[in-house]
């Protein structure tokens, strides 16, 4: 029930936001046919023909309806700049962005939670380094991290390629390592800090102290008492940050000139290619919503109380 209601809400949000995005593009100053003729002087007949070709004379609601039914059939229309099918453009760009976001998500979990646990369990220098690192790491903008990583590991040491997303799976992973690292860094910093706090709270709790007093081996106390209980607050934060990667990926893709959705969106915004902009916006809002939904479901799976509270 809970899942169904959330899915319906997501569909509703998608419908309303696609309407808003379409309306905003419709109301934008500057007319599309002037953009299409690109400043050349043309006869009114040609202009009228262009308007007909792109059905610019239809009333607003008719155009929205045509666009929406097209999108539901997988037809996102044509790009205004190069006449390509927007759907094909998206399909070409999607793998890079998905791989990048997935790699960054793994890095956030591994680096963030791993370092957080280490800092939570060990006192002294290790802890201090992680805490300081997370304060500074959070303040490093992804594009700056990208430049630093690029100049050290690609230009100076030559370990990784500077630009491009690579061919084939292994090559792509290799090309995307630095971008994913740059993208994950600020979020990993936050996750590490939250994990550290959560572990420390659990370490002082009665059940953990009691377990140690009973003589339960420390590995088991760690796994069953500390880590497991501290994952609740951590999983929310991880979820928020993984959803946030979608927007963050634009910037990193641009910095490394990867051929992902983000670079496509940036060029489309710069050239006012509205067909592409609104298609990417809808795809991203959908992706954002789906990740948020998955995170909430995961949260309910970890903590049974959450699901029952929602359905009640």
């Amino acid at each position, binding site marked *: 029930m809970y899942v169904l209601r959330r899915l319906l809400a997501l569909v509703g949000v998608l419908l309303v936001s696609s309407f808003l995005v379409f309306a*905003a593009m419709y109301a934008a100053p500057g007319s599309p046919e002037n953009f299409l003729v690109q400043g050349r002087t043309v006869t009114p007949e040609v202009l009228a023909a262009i308007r007909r070709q792109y059905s610019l004379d239809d009333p607003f609601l008719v155009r929205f309806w045509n666009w929406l039914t097209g999108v539901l059939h997988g037809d996102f229309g044509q790009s205004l700049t190069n006449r390509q099918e927007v759907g094909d453009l998206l399909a070409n760009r999607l793998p890079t962005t998905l791989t990048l976001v997935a790699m960054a998500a793994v890095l956030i979990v591994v680096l963030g939670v791993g370092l957080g646990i280490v800092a939570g369990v060990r006192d002294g220098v290790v802890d201090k380094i992680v805490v300081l690192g997370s304060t500074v790491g959070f303040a490093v903008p992804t594009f700056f991290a990208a*430049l630093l990583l690029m100049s050290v590991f690609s230009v100076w040491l030559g370990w990784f390629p500077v630009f491009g997303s690579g061919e084939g799976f292994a090559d792509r992973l290799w090309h995307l390592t630095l971008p994913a690292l740059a993208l994950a860094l600020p979020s990993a910093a936050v996750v590490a800090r939250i994990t550290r706090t959560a572990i420390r709270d659990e370490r002082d709790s009665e059940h953990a102290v009691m377990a140690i007093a009973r003589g339960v081996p420390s590995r088991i106390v760690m796994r069953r008492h500390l880590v497991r209980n501290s994952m609740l607050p951590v999983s929310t934060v991880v979820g928020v940050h993984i959803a*946030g990667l979608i927007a963050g990926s634009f910037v990193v893709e641009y910095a490394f000139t990867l051929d992902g959705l983000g670079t496509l969106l940036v060029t489309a915004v710069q050239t006012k290619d509205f067909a592409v902009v609104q298609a990417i916006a809808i795809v991203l*809002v959908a992706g954002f919503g789906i990740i948020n939904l998955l995170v909430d479901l995961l949260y309910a799976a970890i903590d049974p109380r959450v699901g029952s509270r929602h359905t009640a």
Partner: protein
Amino acid sequence: MKRFVHRMGPLGMVAVGILLLVVLGALSAPLIAPYDPTIGSVTQRYLGPSAAHLLGTDQAGRDIFSRLLWGARSSLIGPLIVVCVTAALGTLIALTSVWWGGAVDSLLSRLLDLLFAFPNLLLAMLAIAVFGPGLLTAAFALAIAYIPYTARVIRSTALRERNLPYVRSPELQGITGPTIAVRHLLPNVAPLIVTGATINFGFAMIELAALSFLGLGVQPPQADWGLMVANGQQSLLKGYPAESILAGLCIVLTVASLGYVGDKLGGRAAAGRKA
């Protein structure tokens, strides 16, 4: 003042000092910047640090120190617009929905949910697609994107205060809603607004710098830290790292200081951010 110093601690005072320095630099840029930040000279490209150019020059022969000083202005004004607009509109929405409750509350909550569905940067880029690139467009769009965070926190606190006697009794006396909201509710949520704004300022600075980096925020040849990091990318790869690194460090130091001060004031929770 003494309580403030005590609350901040030594590291916190360093952070406050850095922030004061940045603000001072931004305010006095026209007085102390030795060169025009937008005019360079072809013969002066890529100079190292010297008495004439404290931090050297960039690929267009412009003085990096002057550009950092002037860049502090747009890098601070942008986030300032964001937090002011967010705080004003967020508080207005929160107090309105708390005061009237019922249908008004649920309508406004739906509206905030809808805003939550858009990643912040995406919303800003959509606004820029419609209205064209520029600092003002980017700042206002981000402000809209931040409203749900602020509004949600203030709403939940104000909701608690709504039924307390100091709010109920003037209501019984027939004093109008807006008056009570401004006189009694607002002062009680004010600390929350300030802390939220401090945290949001850091987020806004990073995201506005990112937009400038993408070429969608502050436009060249104006000086801006995010833009300088982007401009310096080519020079960095050619072996002249000064411009990118220094501008990036300015952002990192300012944001880290803001984050530290914000944490001491009340933490990210006050900004309505889970993290």
